[in-house]
């Protein structure tokens, strides 16, 4: 079928094969068999090391469900996920430690994902301890802070004493300290100030170029993809309708829905074209 690899092709970091997920709406008439709604149908996905993939779709397209399946928080009704050849499915915290060390997640509002009662040091150390990461934890914590450009003096601060941008960087440092092979980021740029945005983009660039970390960037807005991802997938009505290099997708969207999304992404751009200031491409050159 799909996931058959020949010997010379590199083994994908993460591979999803024919995922299905159904939803059973709650009803008072429990004796009646209900028509289940299919949220995800026949999802095939393979991610190579260091690859940056965008996953776009409008609300209700199934982004969150797919994310939950990839994070092994929910099980698929059919199909399988494998990571470096090992099967991934929901299990106890202990049984999934190996997977959590490899695949980490940056939630939509990272600052809110910090426990207000813990210091920055404890926050970053928590997954290192819980996931039994070997090696010198203190050095990893310092390294992660350097990575996100945060001073060491913040180590004893609590999240309440940090600004929004600093808290965001702590949350990213928590994921980075584990040195994951794959990072799933949910709307990583929405709600960020301009300088923080640039910094996050730079960090993602560095991680994929220097460390070979792979990324899955999830967003409802196609406009962020060209800057962040080489490949973009469009999720529509629970199915992947496009899976192509981002540039090709923008130049010639095949599906009607993709056309609408590309169109929406261009609306803002068109307004900028009449600005006398530096063009967008000069601000952030596309490699």
């Amino acid at each position, binding site marked *: 079928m799909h996931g058959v690899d020949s010997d010379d092709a590199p083994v994908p970091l993460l591979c999803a094969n024919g995922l299905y997920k159904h939803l059973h709406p709650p009803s008072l008439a429990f004796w009646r068999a209900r028509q289940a709604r299919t949220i995800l149908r026949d999802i095939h996905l393979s991610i190579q090391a260091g690859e940056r993939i965008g996953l776009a779709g*409008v*609300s*209700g397209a199934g982004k969150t469900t797919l994310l939950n399946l990839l994070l092994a928080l929910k099980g698929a009704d059919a199909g399988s996920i494998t990571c470096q050849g090992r099967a991934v499915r929901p299990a106890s915290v202990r049984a999934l430690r190996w997977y959590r060390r490899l695949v980490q997640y940056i939630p939509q509002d990272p600052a809110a994902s910090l426990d207000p009662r813990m210091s920055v040091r404890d926050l970053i150390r928590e997954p290192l301890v819980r996931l039994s990461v070997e090696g010198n934890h203190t050095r990893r914590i310092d390294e992660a802070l350097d990575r996100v450009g945060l001073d060491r003096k913040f180590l004893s601060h609590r999240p309440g004493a940090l600004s929004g941008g600093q808290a965001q960087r702590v949350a990213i440092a928590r994921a980075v300290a584990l040195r994951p092979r794959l990072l799933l980021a949910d709307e990583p740029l929405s709600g960020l100030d*301009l300088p923080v*945005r640039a910094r996050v983009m730079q960090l993602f660039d560095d991680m994929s170029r220097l460390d070979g970390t792979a990324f899955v960037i999830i967003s*409802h*807005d*196609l*406009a*962020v*993809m*060209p*800057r962040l991802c080489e490949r973009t997938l469009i999720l529509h009505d629970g199915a992947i309708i496009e899976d192509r290099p981002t*540039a090709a997708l*923008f*130049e*010639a*969207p095949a599906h009607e829905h993709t*056309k*609408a*999304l*590309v*169109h*929406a*992404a*261009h*609306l*803002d*751009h*068109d*307004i*900028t*074209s*009449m*600005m*006398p*200031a*530096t*063009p*967008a*491409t000069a*601000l*952030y*050159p*596309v490699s």
Partner: protein
Amino acid sequence: MSGNDVLKVNELCIRVDGQPVVSDLCFHVAAGERVCLLGPSGSGKSLTAGAILGLSPHSVHVDGSVCINGVEVADIRATRRPVQSRSGMVFQDTHSALNPLVSVGTQLREPFMRFHGLSRRAADEAVVTLLRGMQMAHVEEILKRSSAELSGGQRQRICMALALACKPALIVADEPTTALDVLTQNEVLKLLRECTGTADTPALLFISHDIGAACRLCERAVIIDEGRLVESNTLTHIIANPQHRFTRQLVRALHDSAPGRPPFAPDFDAREGLLCTA
């Protein structure tokens, strides 16, 4: 100019628990005009909307003058305003804007019976015609449902239909697209543009923090920061020549959110994306 102003806000000051949040705000919206009120979060946009609509909570103290259709309404709650000075309202939170226990059809029917003098049956037909005109699918089905059973985009369109059915001179839309995804945002913006801003349709005051959406909808912008008016001009002018720190930031953000490549979409029509007339 003052003769056909639908909305005239003069020296509006808003205090919350004694703290001034908006001070000395002056602007106007002429009949058939679409104006956007832009500002960062916390700049007092929503409080201004509340003061214009007469929906300020109790802890909020409003001073100054708000004239709608020539009637001074700053001190009058929405529920007690005379009919000609009532304005249609569209909110970000569509859940609470409709009664979830009454079917959508029943709620839409009422203004047609009250303001258009139609019979029950004729009002029902008028509702169907209005929604069909707004490109809604499965109209009959939707009218029987409760607002809680609709999607966010559908609910927002029902709210707009309700505002339009009241035949107001002005519609105040407070962040109507913020909670929606990009495609639904575009549909709602398009609909707002089609239904407002001409001689025989209501004028529009669009309140938002999104300058991109504002450009697609409005001709003129009023920009406030920290409760004060910092810039007021046509959007074309503002984008080409931003004066204030916040305005510059907005325009920079517009750069940043735009894709890093020129538009190559084959059927892309630039005029649709941009309403500003140079």
